[in-house]
């Protein structure tokens, strides 16, 4: 959103909003309900128990295994902009005192694309759930696999999906939240095989980019194509939850699906 001191403009309806109201409303437009993208830090603050987040795996950094043209420059630029090494922030957190392993994506780092570091962090977040016997929650935001790491990126799809299988095997519930956008290689791997899939309203969710669909000669495209609402109608997600209700819905799900992991007052 374009920001000019005390005011800003909604990206969707273009109406002018007070910055203070906007933040208090969790960056959801009070006029049209548009859910603007937010950083991983903000997401974590607004979702999990206060000060409960402990970040992990911050030491992983992408190399340039393929020596792909311009990749290192793009990486360094993103690192500088975000002060992070990757779009994925992972670690331990709590929801109403219940421990959870989390991974939260930030689209602003190279479009949340999944390379080796991204895949590794998601895998570790899922494995942490298995090791520490707590539910896993992943907030997705990604344009897809990271082209610049070639087949290594494609294999992150298999690696992360394998980690979901191990969660299932171990009885660890895994909840995915699709935020705007959740696409391609991420959607076609760990994101879509969550036990429960929640989406934020109007989030873009799809397999093929608009360009590919167009190339494929797709003519009639429904108005709501590749939105959360389209996915719900087609049975691909469980529910659409506005940002302000996200925390309470997640608490209910962790409490019920994760019930077997908890005893009164903490993890078993």
């Amino acid at each position, binding site marked *: 959103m374009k920001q000019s001191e005390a005011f800003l403009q909604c990206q969707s309806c273009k109406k002018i909003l007070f910055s203070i109201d906007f933040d208090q409303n969790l960056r959801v437009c009070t006029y049209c309900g548009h859910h603007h993208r937010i950083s991983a830090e903000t997401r974590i603050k607004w979702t999990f128990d206060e000060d409960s987040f402990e970040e992990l795996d911050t030491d992983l950094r992408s190399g340039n*295994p393929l020596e792909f043209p311009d990749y290192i420059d793009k990486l360094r630029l993103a690192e500088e902009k975000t002060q992070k*090494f990757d779009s994925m922030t992972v670690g331990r957190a709590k929801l109403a005192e219940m421990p959870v392993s989390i991974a939260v994506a930030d689209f602003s780092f190279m479009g949340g694309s999944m390379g080796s570091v991204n895949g590794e962090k998601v895998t570790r977040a899922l494995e942490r759930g298995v090791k520490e016997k707590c539910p896993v929650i992943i907030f997705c935001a990604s344009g897809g696999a990271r082209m610049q790491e070639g087949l290594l990126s494609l294999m992150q799809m298999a690696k992360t999906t394998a980690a979901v299988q191990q969660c299932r095997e171990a009885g660890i519930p895994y909840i995915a939240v699709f935020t705007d956008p959740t696409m391609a290689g991420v959607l076609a791997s760990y994101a879509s095989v969550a036990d429960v899939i929640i989406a934020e309203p109007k989030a873009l969710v799809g397999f093929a980019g608009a360009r590919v669909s167009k190339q494929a000669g*797709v003519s009639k495209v429904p108005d709501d194509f590749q939105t959360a609402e389209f996915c719900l109608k087609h049975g691909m997600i469980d529910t659409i939850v506005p940002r302000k209700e996200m925390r309470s819905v997640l608490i209910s799900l962790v409490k019920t699906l994760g019930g077997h992991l908890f005893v009164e007052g903490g993890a078993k």
Partner: protein
Amino acid sequence: MSAKTHNEWESELIELEKFIVNAKERARKEQVASDKALLEDQIVKLEVGRDKFLKALYSNVGDWEKVLIARAEKRPYTLDYVTALFQDFVELQGDRNGFADNAIIGGPATFDGRPVMIVGHQKGRNIHERQFRNFAMAKPEGYRKAIRLFEMAERYQMPVISLVDTPAADPGVESESRGISEAIAASTMKMFELSVPSIAVIIGEGGSGGAIGIAAASRVLMLQYSVYSVIPPEGCAAILWRMPERGAEAARALKLTAESAQSFGLIDEILPEPIGGAHRTPIEAFATVKDAIVKHLAELDKMSPAEVRADRFAKFRKMGEFETVLF
């Protein structure tokens, strides 16, 4: 300027081969014995030339040319391997959810005297076949059929053999509405559940998500001139330079060859193709693939079901290249 099709790249060779065929026909018809001998002499020389040319052409196949060979319409497809290497094959169809897919085929068969479950992408050779097979771009129902077959393989203790040959999964509106992403992910996940051994052979194009959905196997083998990529080179060029025609350049950048995949530890073996490619001497390619599957199955047979699973997880768990920063 790079060739755009396999036929274009092989055009001189193809011309030469046509010329030899014509010469042979002329020789056959020639009544005058001395002229016939002369012609036959020329043919021998032409064939020696052809062989040299062939060897030269295939001794230095670039990354883009591998893309062209992998896509060649003369290249052996899944059903060609099924016919050549398997007995008792019964094609099982349908996702049992309302839809049927012809881009992925599969079913039980006998291989080397033992039952196995086959799953593979199927391309078509003429326009009718290609449309029927949707250009080997599977829809969600293809992956859901695969899941059903994988489950059967697990229940009845049959190793899974998957033959990978797809440009990509189907990107259309219908596929999107029936959850192509979920279908690919669920199929990939199912492959990790298996406690029976699985072997995937990339026989042509290993096209991104469309490939991985049936390629998360205990062993992944690639034919020498097959390719395996996160994105088609044209798509990569379109994103990078907004110029899909710079596919050859993108092919090099993407490192989509068997050698590259092996160097990153992403595949287990490269299966050499006969000189001139699998399409020129399919019978040799069939033998190579058969021997490789027999060998790898024999190794996997030594593992317990739990070991098979653990081995497959460990194999994919290691994939990725990154640095660890010390603070």
